[in-house]
Structure formats: C-alpha cells, structure tokens
C-alpha cells in the first residue's frame, strides 16, 4: 500500500467544493488538471465515476483497469483506463494507500438483497448518480457503470472471498488524480448506514482542483 503524499498546497488550488454527507456531485476536470478528493473526517466512502467530457459514452472501465495493472486495488501509480482503451486519469498521490473498485455502489435494490427487504427506502448512491445524471442531461441510467470507491477497503482473499473491512482511511487522508483527458467526475458521497464502509456514519468530503 504505497503512501505517496502530494506536494500541492491548498492555497494554490483553483477551486474547493464541499460535498456534504450523502449527496451527489457532478463536476468537470480539464486535461492536465489535478483533482484531490479529501476524506475530511475519515472512514467515508466516495463512490466515483469518470466519463470523457468530449464523448460521455467513453467511461471508466474497471476490468480493463485491473487487468492492465495486474492488481485488484487502486493506489498511487494506478492508471484508470476507459472502455475504449484510453488512459483517463492517473492516481498521482495517495495518503490512504488502497481504494476499492469491485464493491460497486449501494442502491435501493441491492440494499434489499444485502440487508433486508425493508431497507428499500433508505437513501443510496445509485439514487445520487441518477439524480445528478438526469439533471445534467448528458448521462442516463445506461451510463452508470461500475464505480471506484475511494477510501473503501474491500480485501480479496486467496480463496476468492470478498470482505468489507472497516475503513483504512482517516480524517485528512486524500487521493489525487491527474486527468489525461477532459472528464466528467460523478460522485456519490456514500449515504450507506448498514455497513462499515463509512464507519456507519457518513461524513462530508471535499474536492480541490489545481491547474
């Protein structure tokens, strides 16, 4: 789990955006810009999707990304590849050390399966993704692919098991991504209350952008 701190200073960033607990965010990043996702209070899961701004049908591809790096976890040095085979962003700094890309996003429907039928009406990441996408107009349900869960710890065992562990993140930990193309960044700051992905206590995250 490489820990690679950033040399960027918050005073030099061009924007700071707070994403309150449980809310969506849809922003854009230009090629060459760097995005820091900051886990303000620790243990938060930040569910994130990336799309090419020039062609939103081009998007982050989990299986290609994992295959090309020969590794199941994301951290500093990981390149995020698109479904068309292009590098979209690179993780250039990371003080958390490991991020999940297999666990997907919570949804009303998957909550009924995972927890109980009566959990259907709890707030979810899928609802956030859809709300932001349909207001924006460039994205629809078909575009909602399989996301990255920044700061989430989902170890794979030698026996092929998949476990959800208490977060390895903490207050003030961050991940930084350098954009190789103009991208749409779609985030659900996870509202999940049923598992330890965010310590059963969703908290705000912050986005900082540098030119």
């Amino acid at each position, binding site marked *: 789990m490489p820990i690679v701190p950033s040399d960027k200073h918050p005073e030099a960033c061009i924007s700071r955006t707070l994403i309150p607990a449980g809310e969506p965010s849809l922003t854009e990043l230009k090629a060459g810009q760097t995005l820091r996702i900051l886990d303000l209070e620790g243990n938060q899961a930040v569910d994130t999707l990336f799309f090419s701004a020039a062609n939103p049908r081009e998007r982050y591809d989990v299986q290609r990304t*994992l295959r090309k790096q020969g590794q199941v976890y994301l951290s500093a040095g990981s390149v995020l590849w698109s479904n*068309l085979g292009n590098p979209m962003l690179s993780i250039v700094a990371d003080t958390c050390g490991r991020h999940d890309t297999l666990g997907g996003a919570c949804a009303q429907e998957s909550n009924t*399966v995972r927890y109980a039928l009566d959990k259907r009406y709890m707030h979810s990441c899928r609802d956030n993704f859809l709300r932001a996408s349909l207001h924006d107009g460039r994205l629809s349900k078909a575009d909602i692919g*399989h996301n990255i869960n920044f700061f989430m710890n989902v170890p794979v065992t030698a026996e092929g098991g*998949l476990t959800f562990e208490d977060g390895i993140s903490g207050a003030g930990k961050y991940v930084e991504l350098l954009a190789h193309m103009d991208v749409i960044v779609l985030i659900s700051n996870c509202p999940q209350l049923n598992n330890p992905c965010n310590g059963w206590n969703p908290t705000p995250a912050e986005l900082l952008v540098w030119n």
Partner: protein
Amino acid sequence: MNELRTTLYETIVPGGGHTSFVLKRGQLLRLTDLEGGGNASVLLFNAAEKSERLNLPDSLKCQHTVKLTAGHCLYSDMGRVLAAITADSCGWHDSLGGVLNAAEVQEKYGQGRYQELRNGFFRNGADNLLVEMGKWDMRLQDLLMCLNLFSRVDVDADGCFRFATGNSRAGDYVELYAPMDTLVVLTALQHPMDPNPQYAPKPIGLTWQQVASDGISVLCRTSRPENGRGFHNTERLFI
C-alpha cells in the same frame, strides 16, 4: 440432483464464435468446456427490459465472493436473480478479467485479418459482445463487467493477479438456471490473462434443458440469506 429434465436443444459455439438468446424462465443452460482450457465471456440482461443488466459488483458483494461457483446467483442492478449457478464441475469462474478489444488482441497475438485468414481471423471479446448486443438494440453503455466462465484468476495477499492454467478440463460444465426470462450474450474466446501467446480459442457446448420444478435452485436460494431475498425480488416480477 435427479430432477426430471428434458433436453430442448444442443449446439456448439466454435472458438471465436458469439451468440445470444433468451433463456426462458424455468430453463437451464449447461455450458460445457469441450476440449479443456476453454473460456466463455458472458453478459446477462432482463429479456423484457434490457436496461436491467448483470451487475457483477452487486453479485460479488452480496455473496462476499469474487469467485463464482455452484450456489451463487448472478444479480441484475435491480436486485433480481438473472441466473443461478445450480451446478459446476469446475469450481471457480472469474469475475475480474473482462474481455480484450481489437487493439489489445492485435497487441497480444499480432495481426489476424479476415482478408488473409477468412473465418479464422482473430476476434475480440469487446466486439463480439457488442455485435450480439447490437442485435437486441443495446449500446456501448450496456457493455459492463462480464464474467469469464471456466477461467480462474487468483489474487495474492498484495492484490496481484495470477492466471490459473488448467482450471477447466475437457468435459467440465457449469449450469445456469433462469428464474426469469434472461437474455444471454456470450462469446467463446481465450481469457485476457491466458498466457498462451497463440490465438487459439476453444469451443463451448451449449445445452438447453427444461426442468420440472424450480427445486433445482434450492442450493442457490439457501446458500445465503441474501439469495433468498434476491429470489423474492425476482418472483415479484410475476405477481
């Protein structure tokens, strides 16, 4: 299990081939690795509402597994069971590797054009799946994570991958039971991490069977409490 079964149809998808069909509610599809070392890349959709599609992250996390085998369910994004793995002689099917696109196939195997090789040309999983999806009016956006039947990719303590050669032998099979009408899209191509430098995809046998009752799915329904709720959600389609 000795359920009453009627074989409806059998066919072989040659190495490099692709196909798609609706596996009807209550039917069973047996896929057979005829020669050993085969791989079938598979996508699943709700045949009646194709925006509902296989969601591997949901399938993996609700069953706490990255390997798929008998007793596991394959879930849609709507919390329903598109297919249940009711039998498996192989023991491990991969959910990590995905499929290669045309550029990646050329990089791995070299150029293999139709112009020189005719129907032996080098195909790729992304295009094969997209072609079949296009026949049902689906789009690039619907090509998400696929599962690779008959292949195994191990993950070590550091998270690194290792492709397991010899995971599937000649005659190994896996059975998918459909508790709803499920559109199956598949292609028979080598797994992307298969270290064999030669383009040499293997044929996959397909057998459709009608089973007398849904008792065949008991193993999957009861293997985890999550799956009982997944079948409950699926059955609500038919009230």
